[in-house]
């Protein structure tokens, strides 16, 4: 508690009960300066206005301005940090006060009386809502003063489904289902090929009668025989190639290739 009646201390607990009980006008002359306790400069102004202990309609704006500026001044003297909006309000109120005191004909529009009126109207509206909140929260409240049934059985709503389906959906589902699950039969075609066995047989027989190097292609069956079937020719080449490798592995033939992907030559192995 300071000499001039200002009390810088903990704010009144801004809790519901203190709030419900009464608006903070009844705190006596000591002013609790705790800006966290105010909801902004307008709130502080309203509280100061209430301290004039007259109807809000009859407050003196000049006196209110003095109180606000004095209050902020004392807070600054105590090096309390003030939020910018409190200082902006103080500056604006100082301007308003000087305008109110100036001779009328030097004034510009809007008149300071208009500004004071608007401030007055705002304070009245905030004051009205503050009182309304207090009266609202002073009512009997469910869970505090009134109680509903503690263990209600509950009303059950059983949902019954009404299923719906179009006949087209039904039939097309079936058609698509059958199309989807129609058995797919995979058949491997019976192709005309030269088997490895016949290639081995043919290569061995031909190698036995020639001693010089010969290209693999010369061992293939005469083209006339398969002229109409290039796939059979490819099959004969592949089988003959594998047969040549097999004969080389068994030591019955020698292989020679002069360059990569070049013609493959073979001859009977020297005994």
């Amino acid at each position, binding site marked *: 508690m300071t000499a001039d009646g200002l009390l810088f201390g903990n704010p009144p607990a*801004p*809790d*519901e009960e203190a*709030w419900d009980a009464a608006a903070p006008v009844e705190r006596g002359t000591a002013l609790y300066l705790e800006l966290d306790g105010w*909801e*902004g*400069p*307008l*709130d502080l102004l309203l509280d100061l206005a209430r301290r004039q202990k007259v109807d809000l309609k009859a407050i003196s704006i000049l006196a209110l301005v003095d109180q606000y500026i004095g209050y902020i001044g004392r807070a600054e003297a105590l090096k309390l940090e003030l939020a910018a*909006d409190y200082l*902006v*309000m103080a500056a*604006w109120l100082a301007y308003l006060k000087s305008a109110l005191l100036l001779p009328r004909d030097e004034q510009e*529009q*809007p*008149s300071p009386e*208009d*500004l004071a*009126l*608007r*401030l007055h*109207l*705002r304070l*009245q*509206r*905030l004051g*009205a*809502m*503050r*009182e*309304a*909140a207090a*009266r*609202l*929260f002073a*009512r*009997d*409240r*469910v*869970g*505090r*003063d*009134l*109680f*509903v*049934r503690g263990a*209600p*059985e*509950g*009303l059950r709503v059983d949902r019954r489904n009404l299923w719906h389906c179009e006949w087209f959906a039904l039939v097309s589902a079936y058609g698509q289902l059958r199309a989807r699950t129609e058995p797919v039969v995979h058949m491997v075609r019976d192709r005309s090929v030269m088997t490895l066995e016949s290639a081995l047989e043919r290569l061995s027989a031909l190698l036995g009668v020639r001693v010089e190097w010969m290209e693999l292609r010369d061992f293939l069956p005469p083209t006339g025989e398969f002229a109409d079937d290039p796939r059979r020719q490819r099959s004969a080449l592949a089988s003959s190639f594998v047969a040549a490798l097999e004969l080389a592995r068994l030591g019955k033939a020698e292989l020679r290739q002069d360059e990569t992907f070049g013609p493959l030559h073979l001859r009977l192995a020297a005994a």
Partner: protein
Amino acid sequence: MPDDLTRAVEAALFAAEQPLTAEALSAHLGGASVGPALVELAAHYAERGVRLVEHGERWQFQTAPDLAHLLRREREQVRRLSRAATEVLAIVAYHEPVSRAEIEAIRGVQTSPGTLDVLMEAGWVRVTGRREVPGRPVIYATTPDFLSHFGLASRQDLPGIDDLKAAGLLDPVDDAFERLTDETRAERDDGTAAPLELPDESA
């Protein structure tokens, strides 16, 4: 002995976990007309330890107010609200529907985002739409649960709302200002004035 429909309405309201409208009750009871039964039950319970009350057109049983001191529990079930939240709730209730900017114009401070969230989480405030002005701000209003919680039959039942309306205290400052200055101007025959804003009004 009450008739079967009255007994059924009584049982359904006892069993319900939420307040019920007459329509919901009727739907539950096969479309019966429940109005007379509700009136009869409300009269029957008027002086008992339990009352049948209607809030926001929804009916429910609750304990009688004069027994509050006997029934208070160690652990309070009510939500403790900040002062800001109680004020915002009052502003929404008395002015609804109302936008955040309108709430802030009355309070003179910004409303922290959590404040309206707390009120919506409590089920007392909801978004009812958007104001058809530039920016289309969302607008807030109170819910039937708000009326039930505070024991209000309707918003007309809000304490002092008629006086506030009559005094123009629910009108915006601009409207009240113009009304008052028009009156004085008519007397003074002054020129027109563009009102200068209070610093935090323009913020």
